C-alpha cells in the first residue's frame, strides 16, 4: 500500500530510530517556536517564542488552562501542525517545516500518540488496531501481526487481541491505544490527557504502564494533563500560559541528571 517515500526538500529526511543511543543530544528541541492563527480579522498568537529541550527518557507533563496554548504545543510536537516560526528538531532533524507526506512519515516512525478518547477504530479488533501504524509503514501482514502481538503483550492484553473496542473496558481500550503507539518503537510518546476518560483505578494502571515504558524502554513521554496528581508523577512539569512556557520545574527527586543548559534555563 505504501511506497517508499522520496523526501521532497533538499536535506534528505533521515530518521533516527529509538534503538540508537543518542543520549547526549536532546531528543526534542524547540527553538523560538511560535504559532499564529488568523481568526477573522484578528491574529491569535497561540504560541509565542517557545524554547524547549527534552532529553531522551524524560517524562514531561504539560499543564495549563484551556486556551493556554498547550494543545497547540502538543500539535506541533506531534507534527500535526507546523510552527509559524522557529525550529523544531526531533532526533536532531528539523521536522517543523517538512511537507505533509514527510510529516506523516515522522509521525509513523518517531511518534506515538495516546488520546484522551482512545481513538480506536470501531468494529476492528484490538490486534488490527495495533497493526494500523504498521499498515501505513507497508510491512507485510505476518510481520505486522508479530509486532502487534508483542506490543499487546507489553501492555498485558494478549488475552484480548480478538476483542473489538466496544467489548473492552476503558482502561483496556487505552492500553490497546498505548500498544498501537508503541508498536512502531517510537522514541517519543505524546499523550493528550490519556486518563481523562478513566476512573481512578484504571488511571493508576495506565499511568503505571506509561511510567514503566519510560523506565524500561527509555521512551520519552510528553503528557498533557490538568490533574495535579498526574503531573506530580512526571519528572518535569511545564506550565503553559498565554502561549508561553510560564514555568518549567522538576519534581523532586529529579530522576535523571538534567544537562547544564537545562539547569541554567530553568534558573533564568
Amino acid at each position, binding site marked *: *500500500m505504501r511506497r517508499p517515500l522520496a523526501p521532497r526538500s533538499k536535506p534528505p529526511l533521515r530518521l533516527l530510530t529509538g534503538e540508537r543511543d543518542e543520549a547526549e543530544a536532546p531528543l526534542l528541541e524547540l527553538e523560538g517556536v511560535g504559532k499564529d492563527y488568523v481568526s477573522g480579522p484578528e491574529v491569535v498568537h497561540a504560541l509565542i517564542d517557545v524554547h524547549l529541550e527534552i532529553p531522551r527518557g524524560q517524562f514531561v507533563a504539560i499543564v495549563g488552562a484551556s486556551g493556554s496554548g498547550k494543545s497547540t504545543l502538543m500539535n506541533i510536537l506531534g507534527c500535526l*501542525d507546523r510552527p509559524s516560526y522557529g525550529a523544531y528538531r526531533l532526533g536532531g532533524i528539523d521536522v517543523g517545516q517538512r511537507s505533509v507526506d514527510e510529516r506523516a512519515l515522522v*509521525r509513523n516512525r518517531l511518534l506515538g500518540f495516546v488520546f484522551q478518547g482512545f481513538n480506536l477504530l470501531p468494529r476492528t479488533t484490538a490486534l488490527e488496531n495495533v497493526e494500523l501504524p504498521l499498515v501505513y509503514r507497508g510491512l507485510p501482514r505476518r510481520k505486522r501481526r508479530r509486532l502487534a502481538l508483542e506490543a499487546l503483550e507489553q501492555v498485558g492484553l494478549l488475552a484480548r487481541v480478538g476483542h473489538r473496542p466496544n467489548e473492552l473496558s476503558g482502561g483496556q481500550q487505552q492500553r490497546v491505544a498505548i500498544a498501537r503507539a508503541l508498536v512502531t518503537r517510537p522514541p517519543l510518546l505524546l499523550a493528550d490527557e490519556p486518563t481523562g476518560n478513566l476512573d481512578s483505578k484504571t488511571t493508576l494502571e495506565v499511568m503505571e504502564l506509561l511510567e514503566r515504558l519510560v523506565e524500561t524502554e527509555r521512551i520519552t513521554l510528553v503528557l498533557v494533563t490538568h490533574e495535579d496528581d498526574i503531573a506530580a508523577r512526571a519528572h518535569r512539569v511545564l506550565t503553559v500560559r498565554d502561549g508561553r512556557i510560564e514555568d518549567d520545574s522538576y519534581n523532586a527527586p529529579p530522576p535523571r541528571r538534567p544537562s547544564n543548559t537545562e539547569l541554567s534555563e530553568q534558573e533564568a
Partner: protein
Amino acid sequence: MLEAMWLALRSVARSGLRSVLTMLGVLIGVAAVVVVVALGQSARDQIGAQIESLGTNLIYVFNGDAETRSRRNERVGHRLSVSDAEALRHQIAGLRALTVYASRPAQVVSDLETARVDVVGADHDYLKVRGYELRSGRDLSVLDVQTKARVALIGSTAARRLFGDTDPVGRGLRVGQSRFEIVGALAAKGQNPFGSDQDDRIIMPVGTWATHIAPGRGQQVDMIMASAPTAAAVVSLRDDMDRVLLEQHRIPLEGKPDYRLLTQDSFRQNQEEIYRVLSVVLVSVAAISLFVGGVGVTNVMLVSVNERRREIGTRLAVGARPADIRLQFLVEAMTLTSAGGLLGLGLALAGIFALERQLGWVMQLDLTALGLALGTSLCIGFIFGLLPAQRAARLDPILALRHE
C-alpha cells in the same frame, strides 16, 4: 491495496440500507449498458437474417391505406388485382420473378387433424420470389395457375400440425366444402421480421384461392411481390413498377397513388430504427441512472467521510499520508459501485433473456459483459468517489481528531 479493499468492504457492509439504495442507481445503469452492448453485438445480424428470410431484393406493392383513398380526387376503392400483376409482368422486362399474394386464415381439415392456418393465393413464382425451398413434391406450375387447379403447397409448420410426421405430398385437404391436393411440401423458413411463422401456411393458385377460399374478392389481392435480379436493380425496377401502376390505376399527374411501393431495404431501415430507438432509450437510461447512482455514491461517501473524521484523524496521526486516505475512500467508493455493477450484470442477464424471448434475437454474452459491468462501475466509483476522497485526504488532522 488489498488492505484498503478489505476496509472498504467492511464499511460498505456497515452502512447497509444506504449502500443498497446507492447501488440501485449504479445497478440499473450498468444493466442498461450491458444490454445495449449485447444488443449491439447481435441485433443487426439478427435483423439482417430475418429480412433476408423474406426473399432477396424484394419490391412490394401494397394496397394504399384508408387515408389515401379518402382523398376526393382519387378513385376510391381501386385495389391491386391480378391484372395489375399481369401488366407488370408483361411491361417490365428486368424482373426476376413476380407474384400476387392474397391470404386469409381458414379452418383446414386433413385426414388426421383440423387446424387454423393461413391460406395463401399466389402465382407459380411465389416460391422463387420468397425464397422457399421445396422439401418434397413439386412447385405450382403455370398450368395450375391458369386452370385454377385445386392443388396446394404446404409449409412445414402447417404440415406438422395437419399431418404429423408423415409426408403430406399426395394427401388431401379440405377447406369448407372444397378439397385440395397437396403437391409439394416446403422446407422450414422460420419467423419473419414481424414475428410471425412463415411456415404455418398453405399456398394455392390465386384463382383457386379466389374461387374456393375467398369468394367475392374477385381479382383483388393483398399485395404484389417482385424480386429484382440484383440489389442495384431494385430502385430502378421499383420506379418502373410505379410508372406501370400509375397507368394501370389511372392516377392523375399530381394525384396520390392508391398503392404503396416498398422495398426490402425499407423493412431493414424500420427494424434498424426500432433497434436504434431501443439503444438510445437504454443508453439514456444508463446515463441517467449512472449519474444518479454516482451522485448517490458521492453523497454516501461524503456522509461517511464526515462521520469518520475521527477515524481519519487517527489514521493521519499514526502515519497515513493524505494519499493513503484518498486511496482508502476511493477504493471504498469503487467497491460500493462494483457491488452495484455486479448486481446490475445479473439484472442485465435477466433482461437479455427476456428480450430474447420477446424479439427472438439471440444475444452474444461473454466475459466482455462482466468486464463491461465491472469497468463501468469502477469508473463511476472513481469519478464520483474522487470528491469525497479528496475531501477526506485534505482533512486537517487536528480538526479531524477533535471531532466527537
